[in-house]
C-alpha cells in the first residue's frame, strides 16, 4: 500500500540563506535534495509525517569549484554532473566510476553526492572513494560554517556528525595526487542498479617499487564506510610481495565487520573483500 504523500510538506527555497533560515525555524525539518532516497522511504511510509526543506533550486550548492589546492563539489552535484566534469575524470576518477555504477541514468540525473553522504547507508558507493581521496566536508547552518574530515563524519550506523539545522554544503577533494594510482571495485548482483555487497576504493603512491603511502576504504562491510588503517600499515613503506599481500588480507579481516543480510553473507563479503584487496595490491605491484 502506498502512503499518501500529502503527509509530507516540501518547502521551496531559492537560496542557501533561505534554506538555513527555514531549517533553523523548524528543528524537526529535514533537507530534501534529489529525493532518490527520500521519495522511496516516503512512498513506503517509512518516514514520519513532516516538513522537508527543498534544496534542489539552491544554486550555491551546485557548483564545482577548482583551485590550485582542491576541487570542491557542491552537495547538490548529481552523478551525471560528476561524470561530465573533466577535472574529476582526470584527478579523481573513482568518483566517476562510482557515479556510473549508481542506479541507472534516471537515478544518476537526480541523485546527489550530498544526499548519498547524508543518507548514510553503509552500502553507499561514493563514500569509499571519498575516504580514499581524503575528502573534507563543509557543513553550514545559520550558526556558521565548520569543516570535518569525511573519514570522521560517520560515527555509527546511520549516525553522523551533523547537527539539526546543519547542511552538507560542499565536499572538498585535496589535489596534488600526481603519481597516485587508484583502484575502485563495486561488487553487486548486477552491473547496474544493484546495491553493493562489497564496495572497495583504494589509492597508492608507489615509487621505486615501494608503496610510499596508500588509502584503503570499504563500504558494505561495517555499519559505516571504513578506512582500513591496519591494512594500510602492513603495506606502507614496503614493496608488495606475496607475504605483504597475505599480511594485508589478514589485517583487513581484523578491521571489517561484515554481516549476513538479504544481499549477501558475512563469509562471502569477507572473502570478496580480501580478494579485491589482493587484486588492488597486484595491480600496484605490476
Amino acid at each position, binding site marked *: 500500500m502506498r502512503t499518501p*504523500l500529502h503527509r509530507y510538506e516540501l518547502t521551496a527555497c531559492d537560496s542557501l540563506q533561505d534554506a538555513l533560515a527555514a531549517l533553523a525555524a523548524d528543528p524537526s525539518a529535514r533537507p530534501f535534495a534529489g*529525493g532518490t532516497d527520500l521519495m522511496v522511504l516516503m512512498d513506503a511510509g517509512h518516514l514520519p509525517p513532516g516538513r522537508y526543506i527543498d534544496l534542489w533550486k539552491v544554486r550555491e550548492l551546485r557548483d564545482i569549484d577548482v583551485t590550485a589546492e582542491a576541487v570542491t563539489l557542491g552537495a547538490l552535484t548529481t552523478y551525471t554532473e560528476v561524470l561530465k566534469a573533466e577535472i574529476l575524470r582526470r584527478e579523481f576518477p573513482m568518483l566517476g566510476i562510482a557515479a*556510473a555504477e549508481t*542506479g*541507472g541514468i*534516471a537515478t544518476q540525473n537526480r541523485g546527489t553526492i550530498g544526499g548519498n553522504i547524508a543518507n548514510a547507508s553503509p552500502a553507499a558507493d561514493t563514500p569509499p572513494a571519498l575516504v580514499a581521496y581524503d575528502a573534507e566536508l563543509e557543513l553550514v547552518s545559520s550558526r556558521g560554517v565548520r569543516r570535518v574530515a569525511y573519514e570522521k563524519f560517520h560515527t555509527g550506523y546511520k549516525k553522523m556528525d551533523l547537527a539539526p539545522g546543519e547542511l552538507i554544503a560542499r565536499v572538498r577533494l585535496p589535489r596534488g595526487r600526481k603519481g597516485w594510482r587508484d583502484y575502485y571495485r563495486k561488487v553487486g548482483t548486477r552491473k547496474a542498479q544493484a546495491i553493493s555487497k562489497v564496495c572497495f576504493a583504494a589509492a597508492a603512491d608507489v615509487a621505486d617499487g615501494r608503496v610510499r603511502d596508500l588509502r584503503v576504504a570499504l563500504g558494505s562491510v561495517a555499519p559505516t564506510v571504513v578506512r582500513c588503517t591496519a591494512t594500510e600499515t602492513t603495506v606502507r613503506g614496503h614493496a608488495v610481495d606475496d607475504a605483504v599481500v597475505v599480511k594485508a588480507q589478514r589485517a583487513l579481516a581484523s578491521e571489517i565487520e561484515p554481516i549476513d543480510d538479504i544481499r549477501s553473507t558475512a563469509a562471502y563479503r569477507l572473502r570478496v573483500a580480501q580478494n579485491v584487496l589482493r587484486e588492488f595490491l597486484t595491480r600496484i605491484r605490476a
Partner: protein
Amino acid sequence: MARLLDALRLQIGLTGTKEGCGEGECGACSVLLNGELVNSCLTPLAHADGTDIVTIEGVASDEQLHVVQQAFIQCGGAQCGICTPGMVLAAMSLLARTPQPTEADIRAGLAGNLCRCTGYMRIFESVLEACRHLPPKL
C-alpha cells in the same frame, strides 16, 4: 508533496507513463525533464515547475512515429508494452547523448529500465536499428 507521475496520469490523464514499482527501480515511469531522463515516481511535482517535460505521448509527431518507436515495432522490441514508453524515452535520451552507441552504451543507457517480457535482446536490437535511421549529426 505530490509525485510528477500522479500529476501526469491522474490530473492530466496522460496514462502512457506507467507505474511499475513506484520506487525508482523499473523505469516504467521514465519521462524527459528538460531533456534528461528521470523517474517520475521519484520526482516531486514541485521539481517539474517551469521545466519542459516530454512523455511518450509527445514523442510521435502528427501521424508519424519517432524512429525509435518504429524500430521497436520492426524488431519486436515490445510485447506487453508496459515497459515500452520508458524504454523508448531512455533510448531517445541515450541517442541524444551518444548518437552512435556501442552495445555496452546501450546496456548502460537502458540499465534502469526493466522488461519482464522480451528478454532485452530485441530491445537492444531496436535501439541499434533506430541508430541506422537517425539523421546524421551535423
